[in-house]
């Protein structure tokens, strides 16, 4: 009985979030007395295998097929199906990345299973694991259990475990040639859109606006606060989707990840996709009219109320304080 953990990579360069998955798998393995092996889908004897073999794992398995030279959901689903059928794991553990969201539910469905996705933690009650997921855009947590037999598929949200806690050791590496069927999609090379003109990761203070700003004209209100603080203006996804601010101002999983000294969230409820991009800010300040908004859970200072009342007063008082 074992746990398989997915190692995500691009051209044999590790996606470091996979280390968080290793930590999750090692942790579950210790609790339940299961050994952990890593799986790397690749078209060659992956250069990454050596690096991963330096963690405390039983085996590092390279699932090899020439069609795995670039990610496709069909290719990865086939490879995973073969590896799971061959090794009969108890658990399959992955980091909840965009790539994993793309293929993991397919693998589970094909094997007559279901994936518990985007978990933030697990608890062990006498060998039966309960997984906790965030639902309703972060407003509530749900404890989830799974029926039926192994394998159990689980993915963990970024930050649920700390990658630098991955325990070191030595693992055997092994290559398993896997059968991959027809790939029904043809991928082009991944690319980065024109580099962000504003690099918010270097900002000392960020004033970010969310849905609560209500209209494009109101962005000026936030801009005034940013100006008086010498801060950069940023936004949550809906604001950029509406094109009220350019996309290079977007904070969150699909935008920039920032860690300024101070982060002021105006009318941002705090959906997980936003929080992963700013939770490491030194001081988080939230102004929101909804006292239940999840942003308050991670805020150091909170004001429940109308941002259109709070912000002009803030601007005035800051001007006074600065003399």
């Amino acid at each position, binding site marked *: 009985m074992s746990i398989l953990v997915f190692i995500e990579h691009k051209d044999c360069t590790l996606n470091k979030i996979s280390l968080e998955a290793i930590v999750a798998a090692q942790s579950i393995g210790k609790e339940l007395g299961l050994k952990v092996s890593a799986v790397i889908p690749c078209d060659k004897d992956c250069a990454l295998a050596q690096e991963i073999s330096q963690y405390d794992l039983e085996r590092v398995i390279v699932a090899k097929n020439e069609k795995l030279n670039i990610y496709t959901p069909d290719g990865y689903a086939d490879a995973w199906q073969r590896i799971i059928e061959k090794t009969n794991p108890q658990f399959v553990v992955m980091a909840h990345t965009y790539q994993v969201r793309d293929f993991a*539910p397919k693998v589970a469905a094909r094997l007559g299973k279901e994936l518990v996705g985007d978990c933030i933690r697990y608890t062990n009650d006498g060998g039966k694991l309960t997984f906790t997921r965030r639902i309703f855009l972060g407003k509530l947590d749900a404890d989830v259990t799974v029926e039926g037999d192994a394998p159990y598929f689980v993915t963990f949200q970024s930050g649920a475990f700390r990658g630098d806690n991955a325990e070191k050791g030595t693992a055997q590496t092994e290559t398993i040639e896997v059968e991959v069927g027809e790939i029904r999609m043809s991928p082009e090379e991944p690319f980065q859109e024109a580099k962000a003109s504003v690099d918010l990761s270097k900002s000392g203070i960020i004033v970010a606006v969310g849905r609560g700003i209500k209209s494009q004209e109101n962005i000026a209100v936030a801009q005034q606060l940013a100006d008086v603080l010498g801060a950069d203006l940023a936004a949550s996804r809906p604001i950029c989707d509406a094109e009220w601010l350019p996309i290079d101002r977007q904070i969150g999983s699909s935008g920039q990840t920032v860690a300024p000294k101070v982060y002021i969230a105006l009318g941002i409820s705090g959906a997980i996709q936003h929080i992963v991009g700013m939770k490491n800010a030194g001081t988080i300040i939230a102004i929101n009219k909804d006292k239940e908004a999840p942003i308050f859970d991670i805020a150091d200072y909170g004001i429940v109320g109308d941002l259109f009342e709070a912000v002009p007063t803030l601007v005035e008082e800051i001007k006074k304080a600065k003399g």
Partner: protein
Amino acid sequence: MKIIVLMKQVANKDAVLRIGRDEKWIDESEISHQTNESDGYALEEALRLKEAKGEGEVIVCTLGAQSAKTVLKDALARGADRAIHIINENENRLSPHQIAKTIADAIRDENADLVFTGLQSDDASYGQTGVILAELLGIPHATIVIEVDHSNLNGNLRLKRELESGWYQWFTYKLPALLTIQSGISQIRYASLKGIMAAKKKEIREVSPSIENFAAAQHIDKVYLPLKTKQTQMLGDGDAKRGAVELVEKLRTEVRVL
């Protein structure tokens, strides 16, 4: 070109959520609802694709309670041609596989060229319905689609997927295929008065299938408010202006940025 768009009714983003009696979901009885955000974008992309192609049919489909019909009516008013309502009053108790299986059985015979969903629902947020559905229908899928190439629609479909941290990737798919659509793919149109009037004549077909058990289903055992990880100092006691004054004092004395 026949496109089926899956849409879901979810709790309004601004709704104050109360946990239901059995603590397994929220109490939905007294909250306002809305169309799931990314599903609205999925519909918009379907309509634009049909317009670009110059022919086709857009069918909207929801799995949900009778009240979810407002989602379908709104979609018909925006330009969808007809609707399928898979009626189930306890949709929130179904597991992702059960949801996908029920939808697969209801739409299989339509033999659509494309099936669109939003990338995930804003309530249960499984983010799996589309992927499982594609597997059950035996068609390929692409998730988190942020652009569809309208320049060449004769044959294959070229689409852009969003990866993480500002990366993107184009893929080409043979049809039929299933796409899960990311919010922001385009600007959503409003329903016109003409559209609202026309919608009244459009078909909403109801089906009420029994839900099959799924042996490996996941269950929500308990929902609750997230455990707080930080001590938050709440300022102003509900008075936004007073809060602002207090905050400036904190910025000066504790955060020390002024």
